[in-house]
């Protein structure tokens, strides 16, 4: 453990030599170091974790389908192709067609952008509210604010989410995917808010946060500088899980036919196939199966991604993969696998 010597020798010497005009670290060097710590090292950790690699690849695939795919593949219309063509027969409609002659693969691709919009809106709402509520009530522990916020959180946890969302959907019948996402995000935040609060409570005990408070820094500054960084792992992992939940719920609601069928959606495909009796008719089965596989793939990607991020955010693992920090391998021996 002799890393004190190897650790930026130049800086240490300059620090104690007050006669020398302190030369600021060159811009390029600083950028390189920041990039190494925030991008390269996490990427190196991620590459060693198969879950992160596979998860990212799957999500990137969906991203491509939602952006380039929509441009490349024509918007499906009725009568594009023979009805109920079986899958893997014709290259133009490789996943087969439905009873209206619309290629299923193209429908799946054209449903992706709306899905991303929903996920984005829902994740922003649920993570944003959760972080705000958790940070505030954790930091103002014991005050009226904390009591009120936690009571509201407990109430929202208790109210069954899906029936509430269904009532909201039935009343407002939203067509815009962003609105659907926001409504779905509304019942999604309390769990994370509680996690964030308990994290804040434990971090608050740390000496460096106490020091900031004694120094008289404002609550906002402390929240931003000391706490938010610590909470990023929870927030990222929970974003992925919240996204999965929003996919499940929105597809479920489209599948039930509660949301208006205005756009292509994986749930709409499933609904039409299921109502058409696909379970009993082998020639229609592909119409039901491919949307289900798509949903599975996307949430599988999200779950893997969230688990991979878990190891990326592990500070000790990241330090080992960063080239700007010294290599203190003695410290993290046997610690790489204790965090599953």
């Amino acid at each position: 453990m002799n890393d004190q010597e190897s650790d930026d020798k130049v800086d240490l010497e300059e620090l104690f030599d007050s006669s020398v005009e302190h030369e600021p670290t060159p811009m390029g060097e600083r950028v390189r170091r920041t990039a190494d710590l925030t991008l390269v090292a996490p990427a190196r950790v991620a590459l060693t974790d198969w879950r992160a690699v596979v998860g990212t690849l799957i999500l990137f695939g969906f991203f491509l389908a939602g952006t380039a795919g929509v441009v490349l593949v024509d918007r499906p219309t009725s009568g594009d192709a023979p009805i109920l063509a079986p899958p893997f027969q014709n290259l133009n409609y490789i996943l087969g067609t439905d009873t209206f002659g619309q290629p299923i693969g193209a429908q799946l691709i054209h449903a992706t952008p709306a899905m991303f919009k929903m996920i984005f809106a829902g994740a922003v709402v649920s993570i944003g509210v959760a972080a705000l509520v958790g940070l505030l009530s954790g930091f103002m522990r014991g005050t009226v604010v904390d009591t009120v916020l936690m009571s509201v959180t407990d109430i929202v946890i208790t109210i069954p989410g899906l029936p509430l969302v269904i009532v909201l959907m039935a009343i407002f019948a939203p067509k815009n995917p962003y609105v659907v996402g926001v409504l779905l995000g509304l019942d999604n935040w309390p769990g994370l808010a509680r996690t964030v609060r308990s994290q804040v409570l434990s971090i608050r005990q740390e000496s460096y946060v106490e020091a900031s408070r004694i120094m008289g820094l404002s609550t906002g500054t402390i929240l931003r500088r000391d706490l938010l960084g610590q909470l990023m792992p929870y927030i990222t992992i929970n974003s992925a899980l919240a996204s999965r939940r929003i996919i499940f719920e929105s597809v479920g609601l489209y599948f039930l036919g509660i949301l208006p069928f205005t756009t292509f959606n994986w749930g709409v495909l499933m609904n039409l196939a299921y109502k058409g009796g696909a379970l009993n008719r082998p020639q229609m089965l592909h119409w039901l199966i491919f949307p289900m596989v798509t949903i599975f793939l996307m949430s599988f990607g999200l779950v893997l991604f969230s688990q991979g991020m878990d190891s990326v955010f592990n500070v000790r693992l990241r330090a080992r993969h960063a080239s700007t920090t010294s290599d203190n391998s003695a410290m993290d021996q046997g610690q790489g696998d204790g965090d599953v």
Partner: protein
Amino acid sequence: MATNYLAKRFGQAILTLVATIALSFVLYHAMPGSPTESLKNVILSQQAAAGGSTVNIERLNRLVALYTNVQPDQPLYVQFYQYFSSIILEQDLGTSIYENKPVTTLIFERIPWSMFISVYAMVVGYSLSVLIGAVMAFKEKSRFDSVSSVVLIGLNSVPYYIVGILLIYFFAIQMSWFPYGGRVSSSVTAGFNVPFMRSIVMHAVLPIFSMSMLGLGGALTMRGNSVRVLGEDYLRVAKLRGLRGSRIATQYVGRNAILPMYTQFMIGIAGVFSSAVIVEQIFSYPGVGLLMYNAIQTQDYPLLMGSLIIFTTVTVVAIFIADLTYGFIDPRISAGADNE
């Protein structure tokens, strides 16, 4: 101290109920158009369909009040007071527009069936997840551990309704082991006899199994917790004392590993009750969820709000019961410690 904790939880439960009722009142007013305007439309169309005579405004207001307990011609606070008191004091949730029966009657006919599958789904899901998680932790890094990790991640990525569809396809249609819809076969006589009970169980197996998928996510958490507990010093002491393996597994590891999952289970209760709406529709299992689904199709707003309030009430009661038992498992809580 214990009474203090219970009083707090009880207050929380009451507060949640009040909040839900207030929310349903707000939602009546948030419907598109002026308060209860859309309801008038629904009633009007119903009457027109029935070949009814001309309807004047006063009569319409009386009808709205009769169906929903909201009296559109009164000031807002009077409306709210009347709405609230009729629900709390008279247990009157309004009258179904479509069925023309009291909402409470309709729901209470169905609620035992929903409770039946939800409670069993919860018990099956949670015990399975605790059991699998514990075994995985005890056999850490074994083949069983790695295989079940992948399987669990996979299962986490499949929405429970897709599990339901697959179960219907394989076990009801292909194998015909189980019936694929309804709650009891029409050929058996109702009563306290073996064929009737058997039919009920056979109809409930697939819904219960697909809902219990929601609880399985807990297995990975349980594994992580158990692995951590297994490394604790007190466990080594327990082993050195020569305690029986079964006692160590249940009283030392099991108990300490389950405790942190408490909040997850609490949120899970609301989730499992929620899932009834989708699962009951897939299996056409006539519980409250299916009632709610039909209420959306027929725009039966009183029934919709009534189902929401009942769903919340059931969840609140379930969580309150869980709270009572939690005091026994974790003495710290009833001692008034707030260390979340």
